[in-house]
C-alpha cells in the first residue's frame, strides 16, 4: 500500500517541514484530509500532528462532501462570478 490517509488540522509553521517533504509523500485535500506516504517517516508525522487515521474510502467521503459543498456554493454564484472561477470538480484521492 503506497499511501495512508488521515485528517489533521494545519497548525501553520512547522506543520510539515522541508525535511518531511523530502522524507515522504504528502498532499492536502478539502476537509483537512491528508494523503501520506506509507513509510516510517510518514507514520511518525501522523503521530506528530495528532492525525486521525482514515481508510481511503472514509477520506474520499470527506473530500467528496466538501466538494459537494463547494459545487453548491459555485452554483449559487452569478453568471459573472462563474465566469471568473471554474466549477469545482470531484476527484479521486491518490
Amino acid at each position: 500500500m503506497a499511501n495512508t490517509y488521515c485528517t489533521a488540522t494545519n497548525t501553520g509553521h512547522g506543520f510539515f517541514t522541508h525535511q518531511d517533504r523530502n522524507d515522504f509523500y504528502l498532499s492536502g485535500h478539502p476537509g483537512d484530509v491528508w494523503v501520506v506516504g506509507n513509510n516510517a517517516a510518514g507514520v511518525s508525522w501522523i503521530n506528530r500532528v495528532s492525525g486521525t487515521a482514515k481508510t481511503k474510502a472514509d477520506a474520499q467521503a470527506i473530500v467528496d462532501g466538501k466538494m459537494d459543498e463547494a459545487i453548491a456554493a459555485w452554483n449559487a454564484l452569478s453568471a459573472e462570478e462563474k465566469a471568473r472561477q471554474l466549477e469545482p470538480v470531484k476527484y479521486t484521492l491518490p
Partner: protein
Amino acid sequence: MATYKGIQGYTVQKLSSDPTASEASGQLWYNSSTGAFKLGTESAGVWSSGGGLNTERGFAASAGTQTATLFFAGEPPSPTKSDLTESYNGTAWSETNDLLTTRYYPGGAGTQTAALCMSGQRPPGGTNITNSETWNGTSWTEGNNVLAARYGGRGIGITTAALFTGGEANAANETYNGTSWTETNDLNTARRSGGGAGLQSAALYAGGNLPGGTTGVNESWDGTSWSEVNNLNTARGQCGASGTKTLALVYGGTPESDPTPTSAKVESWDGTSWTEVADLATAATGVSGSPAGTAGLALKTGGSPQTSSQASTEEWNDPVYTIKTVTVS
C-alpha cells in the same frame, strides 16, 4: 590504532557550535559541545507549511518576500471583508489597517513596508475600478488612479517604479513612477492572473486566464516592450510567482488540462525554459505569491473557495540546507 589524521593527513575540524545550515553545506565537523560529528547537506527545493492567515481568502494581492509579506484584498466567504490587510513576519500573520476601497483581483507590488494595490473589482457586483492605493508600512493612502480599470492585472516592481500588466481580456501595460500611471507597450497576448515577476525594467509574465480557458504563454519585458519566450509546461492562470526575469518560480493555479480546477504544480524558469520542480503540498488556485521574493525563497498565500488551502501558506526553499548528525561506531 591508526588515526584519521594518520590515514588522511588532516583532521576533522572541531567547532564549539554548529554554523548556520547554509554555511555548513558540504562541511563535516565535530561539535565539541554536543560530542557529535555533523554534516551539512544541500537538497533540491521543496515546500513547507507557513503560518495560517487570520481570514481565509483568495484572488487577493501581495507584496514583499517570503519572510516579510503584505497580503491584501481578496474574496473571503464574506465580500464585506475584501478590504482586509495582513502582515507576515516569517512565522505568523497579523491583521493591520484595511484598504480604503474593498476589492478582489487587484494587482499588488512592492514590499511589506512600501506596497501598491491597484485596480481590481469591487464587490458586490464586481465593478472594475481604477483606484490605486499606496501602503507606507502603517496605512493605505489613495493615489492617482490607473488608466484602465480591469481585474486580474498583475503588479510588478516597487512603489516608485512599478508595472501593472494585463487583466481580463486586456493587454494593457502601465508604468508607475511613484506618482502617476503612464500607458506603455501592451502585452502580445491579452490575459489576466498570470505569474508576474521582476522589476519595471526587466520582467516576466507567465501564463494567465483567457476568456474561457488558460494559457501557458510567457512574455519577457525589457523595459520597453514584451516579447514571447518559451511557454510554461502546464498552461495555467490564477497562479503565484516570485523571482526575476531570468530566475523565476510559478506555482499553483488553474490548469488547462487537469480534470480539477486547481493545481499543485510548480515550475522553475532559468531564463530560457521551464522545468517542473516539487509540487505544493496542497493544490490551490487564486493564490498570491511573494513578488519581491526570489526563485529560491518564495511564499504561496491563500487560495480560492474551491480549494482546501484558503487560509494556508507554503514556503519554498531551494536549495534546502540541513545539518545532520553522523552516526559513528
